[in-house]
């Protein structure tokens, strides 16, 4: 049986004016377990807290009920107070007789009666409280960033600059990501590579940053502050330590028929290759599926020409196991496949291209050396049509329901650049809406229309039909003039929807981070915790969380870095003691609790239990206290009541219900 002290606060006149505080104390004294009850002007004051302290000592109290303002206001205060006087802080319950009573009721008798009942409920609960200890867990002061695009690079740089070790794991042979494929960036039109490359170099040269390219995360275990990650470093077939990056091997390689991933398949690359000239590391990889040596055993040209002797055909995948305190997901995006959009003739004509392909065409290092030309015949186009929202804002299952966010701006950029460089080319843009919120964005778009004379038509394109003469007949509607439009175009550019990178689902599963229906990672709170995943210690950076442009990505990357730094700065993490716990004698091991846990805090282990003399191996749910946030979803899913929540246990809540209803 508890020895409970009840303390009724007047809160000046805030409570006392409408609640008879003496009466509340008097009634509380009659409740089971209560050995002391008193009222005071301001319980939260130093003097009020001293009164509580004195009562704890004098009456040997084991639990406290404070009838006062909202627990959201002073629960922490009274918990600290209890702790100061030698009581477990979780032996305190608050009866909210201010916000939920005195402030909303006018009739004194009625308000007093309600206050008595609220106190009764709190007393009933405290009778069942048990001392709880906040646990501690250690923090490994190293972060992992998955993805080496601009988001990942920025996050890594910010974390490293704060003095913490960071590893970047990048799937492709080089860091740089999508941004490295872009030609110019909006709204300033500066060269993408010019602003990205220095960052890549910084990251590569940073003493706190280690970069694993051509590598993938294979396994993640552990929890916030203490993750263990297996990284598969794929066999590069080139010794990174020896390679000087001279590039001779790529020139001499006889296998040159593999579509270049970097150039979106618009031209070919060799079997041994670096994706692009500024690649970091500047060390090629051998694409074993394309390499003649690997396919037939004959060739070995690269090995012969490599003066550094860096070629190593026998190299094998390597598994690196490393510990991290925090993990940032920055896996970025890709454009959707267009096979369901036959009406745009993407697969039928080489001159129907995606915007990302146009970036490569416009780029001086691209397949056309930066000349705007048709890929079919190399002729300069005179009439270009841009189609917006290809697969974005789509109501059927062919595309995506969301707005890809960046297309309006990059199309304005493309249109402007083309009109600037080739004033004789006619540019028409079909759009549903033009969305340009952002600093200097709308100004940018208006320049395209007003200064560069880009022809914007509100309406959708119904069909692109390749003509025998090699032109493309674009049929669309103009919703403003309400007419059908036909344009004989030389080139059609599709603003293709973006979607999260394919691998993200697998990564999310490994991290137990949740994913929405569009495969974007879910944030812990859409407004208030946008860079944290619901899984503690996992953070989100860049487009993996939702469509963003570069400035937004970089700011989010910085925000994620700050969250990581905040975590790594701690030596130990204090865990919330109000967590779920499974009773091993009642647990069925059915796995339903794990299914509703938003934090992946529940795992199962087979354990021998002694159930009243019967010893058997059982599958039992285990709650990771460091991950559990105490929502209680699992407790209701559990039919046997094996899963319970400390601090809000089934019996405590039932006791409150009973006290209120009696």
């Amino acid at each position: 049986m508890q020895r409970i002290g009840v303390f009724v606060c007047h809160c000046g006149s805030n409570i006392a004016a409408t609640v008879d505080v003496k009466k509340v104390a008097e009634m509380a004294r009659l409740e089971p377990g209560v050995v002391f009850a008193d009222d005071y002007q301001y319980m939260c004051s130093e003097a009020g807290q001293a009164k509580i302290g004195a009562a704890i000592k004098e009456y040997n109290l084991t639990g406290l009920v404070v009838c006062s303002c909202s627990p959201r206001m002073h629960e922490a205060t009274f918990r600290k107070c209890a702790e100061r006087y030698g009581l477990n802080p979780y032996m305190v319950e608050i009866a909210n007789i201010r916000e939920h009573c005195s402030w909303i009721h006018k009739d004194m008798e009625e308000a007093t009666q309600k206050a008595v009942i609220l106190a009764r409920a709190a007393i009933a609960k405290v009778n069942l409280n048990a001392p709880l200890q906040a646990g501690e867990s250690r923090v490994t002061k190293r972060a992992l960033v998955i993805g080496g695009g601009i988001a990942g690079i920025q996050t890594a740089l910010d974390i490293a600059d704060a003095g913490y070790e960071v590893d970047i794991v990048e799937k492709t042979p080089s860091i740089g990501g999508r941004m490295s494929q872009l030609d110019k960036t909006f709204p300033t039109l500066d060269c993408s590579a010019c602003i990205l490359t220095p960052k890549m170099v910084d990251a590569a040269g940073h003493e706190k940053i280690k970069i694993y390219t051509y590598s993938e995360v294979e396994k993640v275990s552990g929890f916030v502050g203490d993750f263990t990650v297996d990284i598969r470093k794929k066999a590069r077939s080139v010794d990174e330590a020896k390679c000087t990056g001279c590039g001779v091997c790529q020139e001499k390689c006889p296998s040159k028929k593999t579509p270049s991933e970097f150039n979106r398949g618009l031209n070919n690359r060799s079997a041994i290759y670096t994706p692009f000239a500024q690649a970091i590391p500047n060390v090629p990889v051998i694409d074993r599926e394309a390499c003649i040596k690997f396919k037939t055993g004959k060739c070995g040209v690269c090995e012969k020409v490599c003066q550094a002797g860096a070629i190593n055909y026998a190299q094998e995948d390597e598994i690196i196991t490393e510990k991290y305190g925090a993990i940032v997901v920055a896996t970025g995006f890709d454009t959707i496949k267009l096979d369901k959009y036959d009406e745009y003739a993407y697969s039928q004509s080489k001159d129907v291209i995606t915007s990302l392909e146009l970036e490569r065409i416009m780029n001086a290092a691209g397949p056309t050396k930066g000349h705007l030309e048709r890929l079919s015949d190399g002729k300069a186009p005179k009439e270009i049509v841009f189609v917006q929202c290809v697969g974005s804002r789509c109501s059927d299952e062919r595309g995506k329901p969301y707005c890809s966010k960046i297309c309006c701006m990059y199309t304005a950029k493309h249109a402007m650049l083309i009109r600037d460089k080739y004033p004789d080319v006619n540019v028409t843009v079909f759009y549903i809406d033009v969305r340009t919120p952002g600093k200097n964005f709308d100004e940018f778009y208006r320049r395209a229309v007003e200064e560069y004379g880009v022809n914007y038509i509100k309406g959708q394109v119904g069909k692109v039909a390749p003509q025998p003469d090699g032109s493309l007949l674009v049929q669309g509607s103009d919703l403003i003039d309400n007419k059908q439009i036909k344009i004989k175009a030389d080139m059609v550019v599709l603003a293709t929807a973006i979607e999260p990178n394919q691998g993200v689902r697998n990564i999310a599963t490994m991290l137990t981070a949740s994913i929405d229906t569009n495969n974007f990672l879910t944030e812990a709170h859409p407004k208030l915790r946008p860079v944290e995943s619901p899984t503690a210690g996992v953070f989100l950076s860049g487009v993996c969380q939702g469509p963003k442009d570069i400035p937004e990505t970089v700011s989010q990357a910085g925000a994620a870095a700050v969250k990581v730094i905040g975590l790594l700065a701690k030596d130990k993490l204090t865990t919330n003691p109000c967590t779920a716990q499974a009773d091993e004698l009642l647990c069925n091991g059915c796995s339903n609790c794990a299914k509703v846990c938003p934090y992946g805090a529940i795992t199962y282990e087979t354990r021998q239990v002694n159930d009243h003399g019967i010893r058997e191996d059982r599958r039992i749910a285990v709650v990771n206290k460091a991950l559990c946030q105490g929502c209680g979803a699992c407790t209701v899913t559990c039919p046997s009541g094996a899963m319970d929540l400390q601090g809000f246990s089934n019996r405590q809540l039932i006791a409150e219900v009973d006290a209120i209803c009696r």
Partner: protein
Amino acid sequence: MSVNQEFRPKIVAFCCNWCSYAGADLAGSSRLSYPADVKIIRVPCSCRVNPMFILRAFEKGADGVILCGCHPGDCHYSTGNYYARRRMTLLFSMLDFMGVENGRTRVEWVSAAEGVKFSTVMNDFVEKIRSLGENVRLGDLRCKK
């Protein structure tokens, strides 16, 4: 329907700590009144509320039970209220199926900023319970002794 003004119903309101309880606090600090018949139980999340708690309240003499949580999509724990929504929908449907007046149970989404809504909802709910009268279909007779 005639409303017995003398009848003071017992009403249990489960409020999630992050939105609805804060919404109730805001109603309080804004001095937005609602009948004293409503007594609030704080839970971490609407998903913590077990159907057994609701039946228990009726068993012990409650006349109405209301569950308040964050708006869908705004759950502090991101998904809790989605589960609560399914559970409560099915539970309420079963109670309705068994002939318990469906006005006695309710779910409302109230954010921390919606003090006005909290007060309006509670006023409305109490009014509804008053019109339904005492809960006779789900109580345990032993508690009336």
